[in-house]
């Protein structure tokens, strides 16, 4: 029998949720934006901006947390002999789902992780986001019950599994070669925000080390915020959900201790109060995550253990962020962007098309 993985037990997943719940508000205290200690969607959007894929000058920063998530997972996967390079399960579909997941998330202004952190910080708008997320995932489970699947992966060369970790390593090298220069919007090839959330960040190495730690633990525990809701709805299983709940609880307690809990709807950091669109944005993101088999964090951790299809989803999200800001789809604290609503309609149609048509039984 293989050695039992402690992190895959109930206490293991609760422990990991607790650690993330404490570290995320701490990162906020150390400089990250409000209720955004860790937000996978927001941070990938900032990376997209740092690379100049969009020119929204308030959200451009190469976030070391994301780099750490992938590399931490890679390290864990190698130590525990779980690195399995694999590709070939509908990569282009995953790319499209990643792009629309990002478009939906940026209408709400946050991924499932940030939904929980916003709730834990007292942002009432996140209640609508959470309800939307649950609704979107519920639609996804209906497709899953009717045979929806993305097909099988194939084992492949180790090199293929290393591609996203190497890209992340490359991003880190760029950050070190072209470090932020005070009052300069550009350093070498990288863009750095001078104001807005992109200008708020914890020190590079602290963020990187916390990212590595979370990546390591999440790889071991299979922590997934979408899976938490999906498994509860689909199978009545509460394993992942217990990690999800411990994250909210401990983030709430940490916020109380750090004086970061401020209940209300109006004037919340990086948030708007348009309830319908908060709900709809996260519903679209939730559906896309459910169809792609993992929340944005989980996609990074899977990429670290060699899953080339999850890596394509990540790239879809980064490119989707480019579209979001270039096309005016992303919301701002003033509300939805000029083309945010039609983009969501298209996103839902695309997800439904994928869900209805990809129902061939796995062979």
């Amino acid at each position, binding site marked *: *029998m*293989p050695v039992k*993985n402690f992190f*895959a037990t109930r206490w293991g997943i609760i422990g990991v949720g607790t650690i993330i719940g404490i570290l995320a508000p701490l990162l906020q205290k150390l400089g990250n934006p409000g209720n955004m200690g860790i937000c996978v969607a927001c941070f990938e959007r900032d990376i997209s901006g740092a690379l100049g894929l969009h020119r929204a000058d308030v959200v451009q920063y190469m976030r070391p947390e994301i780099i750490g998530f992938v590399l931490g997972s890679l390290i864990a996967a190698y130590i*525990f002999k*779980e690195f*399995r390079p*694999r590709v070939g*399960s509908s990569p282009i579909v995953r790319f499209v789902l990643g792009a629309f997941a990002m478009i939906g998330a940026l209408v709400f202004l946050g991924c499932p992780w940030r939904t929980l952190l916003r709730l834990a910080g007292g942002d009432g708008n996140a209640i609508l986001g959470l309800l939307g997320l649950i609704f979107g995932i519920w639609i996804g489970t209906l497709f*899953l*019950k009717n045979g929806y*699947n*993305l097909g*099988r*992966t*194939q*084992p492949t060369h180790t090199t293929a599994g290393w591609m996203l970790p190497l890209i992340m390593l490359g991003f880190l090298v760029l950050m070190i070669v072209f470090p932020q220069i005070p009052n300069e919007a550009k350093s070498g090839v990288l863009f750095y925000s001078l104001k807005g959330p992109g200008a708020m960040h914890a020190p590079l190495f602290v963020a990187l080390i916390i990212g590595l730690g979370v990546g390591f633990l999440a790889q071991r525990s*299979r922590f*997934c915020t979408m*899976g938490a809701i*999906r*498994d509860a709805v*689909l*199978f009545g*299983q509460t*394993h992942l959900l217990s990690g999800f709940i411990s994250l909210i609880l401990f983030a709430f307690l940490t916020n109380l201790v750090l004086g970061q809990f401020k209940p209300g709807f109006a004037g919340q950091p990086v948030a708007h109060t348009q309830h319908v669109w908060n709900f709809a944005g996260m519903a679209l993101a939730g559906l896309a995550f459910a169809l792609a*088999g*993992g929340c944005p964090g989980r996609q990074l951790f899977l990429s670290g253990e060699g*899953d080339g*299809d999850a890596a394509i989803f990540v790239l879809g999200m980064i490119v989707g962020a480019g579209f979001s800001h270039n096309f005016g789809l992303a919301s701002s604290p003033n509300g939805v962007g000029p083309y945010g609503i039609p983009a969501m309609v298209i996103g839902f149609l695309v997800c439904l098309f994928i869900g209805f048509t990809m129902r061939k039984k*796995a062979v």
Partner: protein
Amino acid sequence: MATTVDARGLSCPQPVIMTLDAIKKGKDKEIIVFVDTDTSKENVTRAAESQGCRVKDVSPEKEGYRITITKD
């Protein structure tokens, strides 16, 4: 006779859906599930146990695991 479920190459939650299907619909007392990742191994084992089944054996096989489940 045993029902065989080949969930190799399939990502979450397909292996669990297929295993639960086999537990609920299959007539055989024994179900053998093939998976190729540790995550799937843990998920399938957890799901089978939640249905009151017994996981008789988990053995490494080629690029993955062979999980033997028995229904009571």
